[in-house]
């Protein structure tokens, strides 16, 4: 019974949205619009719940002198700063100059710097990968080397040839592999949805 209620809800909502997509009917349109509003409200509620849970977890870690108190303190401080910038009296929310400064001068460079560290982490991970799963990682390294060479920013005839080859490889073999993966994911998604709708999920596991 507990499992059938979510299944019924998912089935009904899915069918309403699908029917609205196919049939032009004002009543159906209004119902589908209301369902979309509920989904947005649920997403907002989930985001709020997540934020409260985050504060509770890190607040507890701070009070109970957890292992990463500095990290928890920085997280809560950052959260408080953003909330103050957006909610202080006279603030215009996300358009407020203070919020914009925090994003443009602090948040964006910090996240971009973290992202740039991927360069080092990826190279280190490949070295370790060669030790653990050598055959697969070797193949990946060879392909990565080929793509890197094709993307070298050289001028002249050689640069033109490399750029043309890079374009072909991105739209040809690499694109084909990626599209195959996407199609596979979509098919698996459809199968999982069908199993959920017919209540057969997890029975063979």
């Amino acid at each position, binding site marked *: 019974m507990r499992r059938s209620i979510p299944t019924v809800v998912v089935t009904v909502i899915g069918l309403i949205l699908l029917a609205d997509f196919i049939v032009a009917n004002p009543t159906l349109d209004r119902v589908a619009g209301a369902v979309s509003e509920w989904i947005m409200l649920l997403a907002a509620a989930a985001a709020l719940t997540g934020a409260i849970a985050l504060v509770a977890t890190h607040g507890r870690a701070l009070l109970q002198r957890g292992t990463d108190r500095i990290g928890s303190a920085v997280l809560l401080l950052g959260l408080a700063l953003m909330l103050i910038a957006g909610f202080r009296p006279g603030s215009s929310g*996300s358009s407020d100059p203070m919020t914009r400064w925090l994003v443009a001068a602090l948040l964006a460079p910090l996240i971009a710097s973290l992202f740039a560290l991927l360069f080092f982490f990826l190279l280190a991970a490949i070295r370790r990968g060669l030790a653990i799963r050598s055959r697969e990682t070797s193949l990946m390294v060879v392909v990565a080397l080929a793509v890197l060479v094709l993307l070298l*920013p050289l001028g002249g005839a050689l640069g033109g040839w490399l750029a043309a080859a890079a374009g072909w490889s991105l739209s040809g073999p690499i694109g084909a592999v990626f599209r195959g993966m996407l199609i596979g994911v979509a098919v698996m998604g459809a199968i999982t949805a069908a199993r959920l709708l017919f209540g057969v999920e997890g029975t063979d596991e």
Partner: protein
Amino acid sequence: MSSAWRRRAFLAPIVLLVLLSLAELAPRLSALQLANPDASRAEALRAALAAVPADGVALVDIDADLGTYPEVRPAVRAALDQLVRRGVRIAVVSFSAEGRAIASAELDRMQRLAPAAPLLDLGFRSGAEAGLVRSVRSIVPEGVGGAVAAEIRRRGGGLAAFDAALLIGGGEIGPRAWVEQVRTRVPQLQMVAIAPSVLQPELEPYRASGQLKALLATVRDDVAYVSAVGGWSAPRPGVAPVSGREPSALAILLGMLVAIGVLVEALAGHLLGPVGSPASRGQEER
């Protein structure tokens, strides 16, 4: 792990950072070319944005990720500048929290550089893809006024009111979601996209099929586009260029050569000898 290897691993990133900084400061070399020699993709975006009527309304969806946005930022700014220079009315919207943060900063910048530009901030629409679907019918929030908002409402108030949509893609809500959710409902809306390289393989089929009128999804195409619309140069003396300084091809080349060197060394060490190879070092580290 030996102390020599540990010292090398500690010093290597520092040396690389110093070299990258020097390369960034060095004068540009003519032997290197960052812009893609095949400018067809850059030209497609330039032409698509030039085709928006001067009295038209363009929607700019900024849903990039903060991590990958620096890669596409010059092209995004150049595209916004191309629209602003022609007097096209622009409405900016976001469906992701990170996108909203970026949009807020870009709006601030545009309002400083072009105070008279007809811009409308549609803000953040919650609900991710559900919010996107909801916007097909109505995208202007209640209480938002001004000439641009009035024009969008006069045209119906939904996504069909726009002459074109410039999609700044990210991992959460990107051009793919727009093609899947909006293209099927508003087929007449012309969509062009700027996305980071990581999204290129999944977006290329949409460009090839014409569902995306234009797509920039590599650094080399971005640089070619910014060069094509004159984004690296200042519009008049004393005014900062729209897209900042052109990325240093030498710094990028240096980073790529280091990556190639590390990969070749790791692969050769693994294939040629077990003693002192990355494989044995990896086993030690484990």
